[in-house]
């Protein structure tokens, strides 16, 4: 959108955050998790970050480790009230949740987290438009921060994205000397910048500006290059293989290692399944909530009869792969994965999605008679 990019200096960022805090506009950003209990002898943990409403620049953890959980929680909270109910005389009074959410902004979202939002939008607006999700989406402006690539578990480039993908972002920050190069991709992004114009500075005209632009581009290029080496798959044949190998012995090799805890789903930016529970507060008074759920637990598909169509973890893990790379793409034209690699990092038993995809792709290649992995056509085909 913006003809000419802007610059957000580190000071500018600081003032912006303080401004927003002062104005009572929640600013969600990657911040230090640094939880007290683990401080002693848990240096690794101390480096952990999380998305959180920040009130000062000191909390910010831009360009540090990938936040523990994705942005999902700010659009589909781990628990949220659908309505509360109360007996009134002979009847029941339902009190629906408010949907007029105050505007908020996300600063420094990972592009892979931002990209998840439009992907999940599709299921949230398929047969039924999810008010709560949509209202939060509408109330939120997302500025992503071009990603330097976390580690070898990243594979955004294998799912039609890249470390600086603009998808799902209203604007983007790219690290450059002295701060961040700012681009906007939507009216929302424009409006936000306009509203806080004094925090942003114009890109110096001429050479100075050029230098920064080049810096930004080279940062993105380096990242793009780095992630490309991690994984490449041909989604066409991958889908095809999945479609025809529901009962393949391959799956029996994945189940045993899996604890069935669903940490992968908790940390996943695109997993969106939820459970609906009624919680009484007293007699004739209660709350209906929806809570994160995951297909990896045995009770997820347990029928009241006691029958369970997904008998074991083999079937459950197959479900995870097939839903993300076969079912969702066929239904919504999007892979339900942004390659953030959180599932691989968080898995307590070392289950590795990239490894599994590569494995399947190799098998698919053999089935398809093709040799090498990741032919370029795949991306275009799936993107179109």
């Amino acid at each position, binding site marked *: 959108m913006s003809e000419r990019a802007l610059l957000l200096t580190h000071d500018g960022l600081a003032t912006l955050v303080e401004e927003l805090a002062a104005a009572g506009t929640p600013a969600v950003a990657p911040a230090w998790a640094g939880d007290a209990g683990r401080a002693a002898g848990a240096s690794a943990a101390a480096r952990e970050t999380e998305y959180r409403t920040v009130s000062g620049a000191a909390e910010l953890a831009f360009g540090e480790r990938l936040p523990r959980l994705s942005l999902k929680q700010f659009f589909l909270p781990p628990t949220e009230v659908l309505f509360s109910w109360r007996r009134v005389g002979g009847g029941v009074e339902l009190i629906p949740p408010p949907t007029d959410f105050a505007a908020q902004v996300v600063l420094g979202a990972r592009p892979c987290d931002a990209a998840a939002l439009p992907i999940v939008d599709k299921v949230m607006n398929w047969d039924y438009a999810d008010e709560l999700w949509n209202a939060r989406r509408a109330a939120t402006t997302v500025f992503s921060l071009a990603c330097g690539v976390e580690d070898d578990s990243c594979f955004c480039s294998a799912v039609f994205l890249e470390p600086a993908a603009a998808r799902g972002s209203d604007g983007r920050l790219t690290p450059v000397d002295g701060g961040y190069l700012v681009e906007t991709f939507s009216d929302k992004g424009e409006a936000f910048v306009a509203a806080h114009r004094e925090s942003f500075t114009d890109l110096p005209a001429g050479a100075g500006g050029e230098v920064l632009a080049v810096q930004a581009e080279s940062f993105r290029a380096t990242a793009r290059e780095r992630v490309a080496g991690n994984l490449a798959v041909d989604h066409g044949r991958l889908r095809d293989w999945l479609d025809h190998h529901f009962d393949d012995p391959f799956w029996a090799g994945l189940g045993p290692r899996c604890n069935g805890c669903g940490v992968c789903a908790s940390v996943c930016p695109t997993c969106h399944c939820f459970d609906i529970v009624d919680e009484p507060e007293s*007699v004739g*008074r209660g709350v209906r909530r929806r809570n994160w759920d995951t297909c990896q637990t045995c009770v997820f598909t347990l029928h009241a009869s006691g029958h369970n169509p997904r008998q074991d973890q083999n079937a459950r893990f197959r479900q995870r792969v097939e839903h993300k790379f076969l079912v969702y793409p066929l239904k919504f034209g999007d892979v339900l994965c942004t390659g953030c690699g959180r599932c691989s990092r968080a898995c307590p038993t070392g289950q590795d999605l990239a490894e599994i995809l590569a494995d399947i792709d190799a098998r698919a290649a053999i089935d398809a008679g093709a040799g090498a992995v990741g032919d370029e056509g795949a991306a275009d085909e799936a993107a179109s």
Partner: protein
Amino acid sequence: MSRIGVFICHCGENIARTVDCGAVAEALREHPGVVVAEDYKYMCSDPGQQLIKKAIADNDLTGVVVCACSPHMHEKTFRRAAAQAGLNPFVVEMANIREHCSWIHDDRGEATAKAIDTARTIVEKVKHNKPLQTIRIPVTKRALVIGGGIAGIQAALDIADGGHEVVLVEKEASIGGHMSQLSETFPTLDCSQCILTPRMVEAYQHPRIKLYTWSEVEKVDGYIGNFSVTIRRKARSVDEDLCNGCGDCQAACPSRRIDSEFDAGLSRRPAIYTPFPQAVPNMPVLDREHCTLFKGRRKGLAKDACGKCKETCLKGAIDYDGQDTFVTEEIGAIVVATGFQLYDIGREQPAGLKGYGEYGYGEVPDVIDGLQFERLASASGPTGGEMLRPSDGAEPKTVVFVKCVGSRDPEKGMSYCSKICCMYTAKHTMLYKHKVHDGRAVVFYMDIRAAGKGYDEFSRRAIEEDGAEYIRGRVSRIFRDGDKVKVWGYDTLSHRQVVVDADMVVLATAVRPQPGIGELAQKLSVSYDQDGFLNEAHPKLRPVETNTAGVYLAGACQAPRDIPESVAMAGATAAKVLGLFSADELERDPSVALVDERTCIGCFNCEHVCPYGAIEHRDVCDMEGHVCGHVAYVNPGVCQGCGTCVAVCPSKSVELAGFTDDQVYAEINALAGW
């Protein structure tokens, strides 16, 4: 959809005085699921119950809550009423707004609010009550009587005469108990043995009484109607089938210096002995502790040091190598009649008791206790009934009787009254005066407690006709003074020091439960009081029952009792047992645990904590019928419904009927409103 009826009782003024019953009804009418709420003056009265029955019919109720007194008071009443109206009795619960509310609060507002909460809580519970069916379990119609004293003998005879088998266990070599040691009995002065011995023989010969003497209860398993009792038959060393009770062995025994238990230490007996001439069975037992042969074996001598009795016995009934044996009896009901012991103030005192060293008992030979006096006075006693004192066999011209030695004395002895001493001391003075006409009987007493038919007249006779000198007061010291026994006392009526130069002193020592009663109580899971007497289920309404179904109490194991009372209690227990045996099946409260086999993982935490061994292992089979695991199963006949298994089940796969998680949750949830 629940349709609950709530019925609030005024209990006359008892509840209505502090709780606004109308307001409670008003509030409960608004409560979800309640279709009718009414208050009434006396809900337990016939019209009150009618009101409930009518409401059940008119409103097609699925549950009933009666807000009144404690469920311990009237739960049965209202459940019966509901049952008569065609409702399952177990969907009826009581909200206690009397004992737990109106009687303990002043403020009408607070009390009413609490009554409403309580009612709501129970209403929520009842919504989750399930109709239950009473459990029926078979009854083994055989009784066990523990203790062969007069109480045990009477109970055994009454039950056996009622047509049921009885197993009578006595830890001594002969039945008879303390009564067999007594000379005459108050208030009639008839000869104790003359009235007891026939009963002993009758019990011994009764076709339906199985007698185990020299035996003790080792282990008790099971539950009412279905006990399995293991009895230890202590090695008697005499073959009961071969022995004909000729007594030759006793004559042959070289070690004859052993204190006779029967004569309370006033005479000596051999190591192999029959406790007393009229013993039942009339058969000796070998006292291995004092026997020369066994002493030798304990020392590890190569060859036996003695063997005289075996040599003498023509029947070859002596067996030195016999060991304790165990028999297990299937039993339906148990009567405990273990009786009492006298407070042995001579030796070490029960924990925390100072005792009575100053009375010289155990040091001064002519200071004896009541039981010893009985032996001195008894025709079958060591003196053949002549009144001769232990030290020198002289006839005592002055005898002092001291009452309440160890009784009614929290400082140094027991706080309770031993009850029988007043009467037997009066009796003793008479027996003495009848034998020593010129003798002087002085009694130190605190009070004379002679309540009982003919009792007061009896103790008056001792004073008025037989001239016993009663001095109201305590004795401070008793000590030897030459051949006299000096008694220092104080007369609290004339407020003067009294010193008596006595020839003999008789101490009426306190009645205490038998030693080892605690262990027995635990085997039977019966509770006992701080003094060790076994607890009845209810002091007034269930005086011979215990809190353990199927276990009953007769005689002095429950409290100090005299003979008529012990016999009466024995009869009462017999009536209870016969009542229990009158039906082939026993109805039991269906509040028992049930395992959900679908979610049980067979960790058997429940088994570890179940006090009744009610948890069994059940195989789980796969579709081909192969055993693929184990789950817990609760035997509803054995389960007593404590629910400990429920609390330790990690996955909540056990439920306790009547107190399910659903019910408790609902109660807690209901409290959120207040």
